[in-house]
């Protein structure tokens, strides 16, 4: 199944440099409609106001973390099926389990490579 690369993608990270890196990697994967947020609260507002097909979020942000954003997304009737990839340096088993239980679509540990990002995006969008 072909992916719709014209969809809006929201990337969420409190490090501007990381936002820039992920945006550029997405551009290489031909995702050109990319918006940014620097924490969960800003991301949630954008998600509720817009029309996105994918969220790629960091975990460790202030004031709202990526996990808390994920829970809000899954509790929202309009957003609950939105593909959500966590991309984070949090690599403990308890983090992965908590994210999975909260409904994460996939989980990428930092530092990551472009191939891993491509593979996970493809996986979650094909199964969305």
């Amino acid at each position, binding site marked *: 199944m072909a992916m719709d690369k014209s969809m809006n993608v929201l990337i969420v*990270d409190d*490090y*501007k*440099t*990381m936002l*820039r*890196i992920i945006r*550029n*990697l997405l551009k*290489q994967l031909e995702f050109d409609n990319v918006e940014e947020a620097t924490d*969960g609260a800003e991301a949630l507002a954008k998600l509720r106001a817009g029309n996105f097909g994918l969220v790629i979020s960091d*975990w*460790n942000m202030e*004031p*709202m*973390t*990526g*996990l*808390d*954003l994920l*829970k809000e997304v899954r509790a929202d009737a309009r957003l609950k099926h939105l593909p959500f990839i966590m991309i984070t*340096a*949090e*690599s*403990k*088993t*308890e*983090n*992965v*389990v*908590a994210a*999975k239980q909260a409904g994460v679509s*996939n*989980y*990428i*540990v*930092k*530092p*990551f*490579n*472009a191939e*891993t990002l491509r593979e996970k995006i493809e996986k979650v969008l094909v199964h969305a």
Partner: protein
Amino acid sequence: MHDVNPSQGHPDAIEQAVRQVLGSLAGDMTMTEATLLSELEALGREVQRAKTEIAALRVDDINASHIPRATDELDAVVEHTANATNEILDVCEGLEAMQSRVPASESEKLGAAVTRIYEACSFQDITGQRISKVVSALKAIEGRVAAVTARFSSGADAPPRPEEAVPVTPVTEGRALANGPQLPASASSQQEIDKLLASFD
């Protein structure tokens, strides 16, 4: 009877409390009681000696100068690496813009090289998070040092200084589990995480 709180830790207060307790006992002190008093007096002298040594360390300098300077230096490291990373990204974006102007075979190699640079640049996020953890540790030390300094400078009879009111923010599960990057020896690999996720299917 005069109230004395031995928990305040001042050697004179401890000794006075012990004397009051032993003085209230009927008859002469037994050998055991005398030994106990002697031990407590020695303990009091140790506390006094420790207090003098801590005062000689000039612990105020730690909070007034050393820790703020260390955190400033670390903040500068984060800022410099962020600036350097952004310059690298500027150049990479310039190279990507040139891709369409070079032969296809070279363009592909150029694209692959740029991708590797992007991947490598994510170090800045990881090092930034690690430095944030160090800064948090330094601030915790600063708080403890301030508490010890205040305790010793407030006098033996003064009650402990109340904790400063800190706004209470709810600790969500996401916040409680936000620990930053693991050390390489204890970090899970992408492969291990994939395996863990697959176990839920």
